[in-house]
């Protein structure tokens, strides 16, 4: 491509990298905010600025971590990014299965796609029937020994998560 092509690609890639950094800081700070809202981190991170309504202390803390991470060797950084996301990613898959088993047809998107519900005739439903009752049994075990048992799914079903009988939409507190 030559020098002109390299210049063009670089000019296109520069704002792309900047928006990635922006979105990363925006989303990462909300994790701190949410953990603090559930009273599992100091209440400091739950502070919301009055005018713009943004969690500015969480954003600031995320910015400090970003600044520190910029001076780490890049291969270590990539390794840390990849490996630390394995647990949340796997747990999300577990959550989908567990929530589906708890309340079939709870999500409108997959209900439309025909993926959920015990009456589903798709291969997905057959696979779920083959899988047996294991997720709920695991959930029951967790509920039994876990100290914060009013957080877990059994009580979500009772108190927190209701389903609107008219629209079928899941209602959250």
């Amino acid at each position, binding site marked *: 491509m030559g020098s002109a092509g390299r210049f063009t690609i670089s000019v296109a890639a520069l704002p792309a990298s900047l928006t990635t950094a922006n979105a990363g800081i925006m989303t990462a700070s909300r994790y701190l905010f949410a953990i603090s809202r559930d009273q599992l981190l100091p209440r400091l991170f739950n502070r919301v600025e009055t005018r713009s309504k*943004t969690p500015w202390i969480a954003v600031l803390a995320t910015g400090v971590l970003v600044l520190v991470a910029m001076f780490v060797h890049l291969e270590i950084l990539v390794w840390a990014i990849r490996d630390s*996301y394995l647990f949340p990613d796997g747990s999300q898959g577990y959550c989908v299965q567990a929530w589906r088993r708890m309340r079939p047809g709870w999500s409108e998107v997959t209900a439309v796609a025909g993926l959920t519900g015990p009456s589903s005739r798709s291969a997905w439903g057959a696979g779920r029937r083959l899988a047996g009752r294991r997720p709920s049994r695991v959930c029951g075990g967790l509920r039994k020994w876990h100290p914060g048992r009013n957080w877990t799914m059994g009580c979500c079903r009772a108190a927190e998560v209701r389903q609107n009988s008219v629209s079928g939409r899941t209602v959250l507190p």
Partner: protein
Amino acid sequence: MQLAKDLGLIHIFSLAAGAMISSGLFILPGLAHARAGPAVVLSYFLAGLLAMRGLLSIIELTTAMPKTGADHFYISRAMGPAMGTVAGVLSWFSLSPKSAFALVGAAVLLLVTILYTLMITVTSGVLGAEQLDKRQPSWDRPDGSPSASPPCRLL
């Protein structure tokens, strides 16, 4: 106090597209093509299938529970607050270095490529184009000395 929740479809789309389009689109396909050759299309298809699995999970959870702190919220409600906190902190710890990675990439792009090209352009304006043709950028040298352009190795 509640957060301001006024992002619409176009805002979320712009945010997600801006977050995804970065070094993964501009740099990594070249590296993958250098190793896999034309089969890079197949490898991207397989990687897309793997990514689709996570995407479907996220879609289902997010449309049903649009709450702040995605992973932490779902996992703490399904597996208990301990697991939820671990997942939330790990997600925070994996998203913030991604910003740092993008910022380092932007700095390298700005310094190495754009400033270098501008410098060449200005120099060619001063010296004349016949001087420029004899020059070669350090990364295009036939002997391929890697120490000539250390910042390029970052990419």
